[in-house]
């Protein structure tokens, strides 16, 4: 426990692979999760995020690779020997025990004295604001309350890392948003790392300090929400996180990309000339103008408004560029120009608004 890296790394995966028969669920990933971090594993279903979480919990053993928790190798330890606890998807509360017994279960299994276990469980139940519900069965609780019991049941053991598998997936939208901020403040209060799995990119962006995006068993990008949104590492990440327009093209030089229709666009990249790329342009980063206006900075392409969708707080235009359609989102400000179906327009954006992504 002396060197610096183990002191700050709560979870460390090196070259971890998990194969189920011939299927590679997780493919040689490297990942370091810092102590006290709110960390999201994000990806579509079947991307390997849940398997990764289950390997950290000990519910699956890696096929190979090193898995350390606070510097200790745990790859071959069963779940009951690891200092981590899990909030399961759909909670997995014990239906034959009341709330108090559910929460005290982990302490009892560790041989904590009965009285102490009860008082600590009580305290933990208070922490998730369920005081007075101790004698209820899980079936007598609402979804949100069950979620809190699952949290208390894990946290009462003072895990060094808390793992959460789609913790908010079963809740309705309003409750989910409420729990998001509650989880976040709970994590900050406790200072323990939370590692949570989600397929909801918005949830990942809202809650996490850092996000790991996974697809097909591979780790595509790890970074802060801002890094991932602003500078997606590749086409998949750009497309998966938020809305984006992908304009196909090839790199001409470090400052220019030639779109598939021949338009030259200023865009910075470090790729070799001739590389096939796409420009990722977020709908809110582009703006519409009437044709013929002078463009001083950035780039523009011409098109015709094909559809307008009114969202209340914003307007979404689908602009037909002949070779593709592009989505542009405008804030609904009183002074802003409004366009209509059939209007001939220019789509305008600044150079730093686009990122060049590879396949």
């Amino acid at each position, binding site marked *: 426990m002396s060197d610096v890296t183990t002191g700050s790394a709560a979870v460390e995966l090196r070259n971890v692979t998990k194969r189920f028969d011939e299927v590679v669920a997780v493919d040689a990933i490297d990942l370091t999760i810092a102590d006290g971090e709110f960390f999201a594993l994000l990806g579509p279903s079947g991307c390997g995020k849940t398997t990764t979480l289950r390997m950290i919990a000990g519910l699956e*053993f890696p096929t190979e690779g*090193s898995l350390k928790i606070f510097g200790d190798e*745990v*790859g*071959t*330890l069963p779940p009951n*020997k690891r200092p981590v606890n899990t909030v399961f998807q759909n909670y997995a509360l014990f239906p034959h025990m009341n709330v108090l017994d559910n929460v005290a279960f982990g302490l009892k299994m560790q*041989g904590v004295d009965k009285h102490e276990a009860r008082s600590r469980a009580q305290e933990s139940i208070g922490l998730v604001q369920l005081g007075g519900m101790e004698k209820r069965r899980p079936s007598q609780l609402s979804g949100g309350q069950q979620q809190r019991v699952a949290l208390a049941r894990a946290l009462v053991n003072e895990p060094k890392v808390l793992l959460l598998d789609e913790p908010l997936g079963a809740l309705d939208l309003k409750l989910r948003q409420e729990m998001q901020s509650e989880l976040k403040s709970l994590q900050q209060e406790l200072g323990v790392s939370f590692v949570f799995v989600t397929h909801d990119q918005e949830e990942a962006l809202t809650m996490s300090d850092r996000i790991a995006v996974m697809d097909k068993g591979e780790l595509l990008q790890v970074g802060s929400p801002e890094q991932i949104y602003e500078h997606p590492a590749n086409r998949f990440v750009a497309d998966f996180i938020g809305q984006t327009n992908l304009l196909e093209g090839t790199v001409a030089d470090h400052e220019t990309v030639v779109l598939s229709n021949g338009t030259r666009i200023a865009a910075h990249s470090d790729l070799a000339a001739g590389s096939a790329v796409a420009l990722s342009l977020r709908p809110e980063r582009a703006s519409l103008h009437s044709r013929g206006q002078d463009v001083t900075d950035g780039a523009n392409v011409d098109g015709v408004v094909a559809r307008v969708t009114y969202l209340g707080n914003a307007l979404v235009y689908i602009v037909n560029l002949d070779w593709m359609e592009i989505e542009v989102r405008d804030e609904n400000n009183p002074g802003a120009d409004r366009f209509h179906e059939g209007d001939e327009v220019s789509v305008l954006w600044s150079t730093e608004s686009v990122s060049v992504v590879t396949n």
Partner: protein
Amino acid sequence: MTTLDHVVGEVATPEFEHANEQLKRRRGFLMALPAYAYLVVFFALPLVFVVIYSFATRNRFGGTDLAGWNLDSYQRLFTDDLVGTILARSLWLALLTTVICLVIAYPFAYYMSTRPESVRNLMLVFVMIPFWTNFLVRNYAWRVILGTDGPLSQTTEFLGLGPQKYLFTSTAIVLGMVYGFLPFMVLPLYAAIERIDHGLLEAARDLYGTGVQSFRHVLLPLSMPGVIAGSILVFVPSLGAYVTPEILGGAKTKLLGSHIVTQFLEARNWPFGAALSFVLMAVMLATTIIYFRKGGRTL
């Protein structure tokens, strides 16, 4: 603080994963082993005995010679007139029992499924009770009712129909079997009909179907798995019935089950008895396999 001991593991390897997988398999196998071994010894092995005996020869003293293998017993199945009669009668009565059960149970199960949930559950409980009640006793009750001077005969006499002979007839056997096996028909039928979305029947009526048409084209096809499961559950034990014909039937209404028993306990022709029970088992297996092939699940 957790009271967890500080334990350190090792770097996971494919070998460790494999060993762990093997350990899990071995654990599963060891759990299954006692029952597995038990059934091999006290079920599979006896099954083999039946097959072996069916090819053996009966000797003069009523014993069995296992040495001389032959097909005599199977040949006799086709040549012995008595066997033919008994087989035909057993099949006919089992079929009749199945059809009668189906006719009674279908509307009943349907009606049950239209009741509110609490009533439905209560109705179900009162079907389950005879299902759990001692089978011998239930058959014996009919012996009392159908007997000479019994309640039924007294009733018919009172009505001026004169005394009737019920006991020791095929009718009595079918009555007893319907009584005994009706719950086996009701339960799967109810399970199948209850699952059907009632909106479908309303849709059929909405699309100008008459009551009969919506039954034929919607309810019946959708409840088919229940019909098949129930029919098998009634047909198989009816075909092998022994207790009911012994109590309610007579010498002239002998069935396959009784005939098999006779070969062992009275005629002492074990090879022929073994062949007969093998045939019964084959029919049963064939019926069940057809059912599973048709995609049924609820047995």
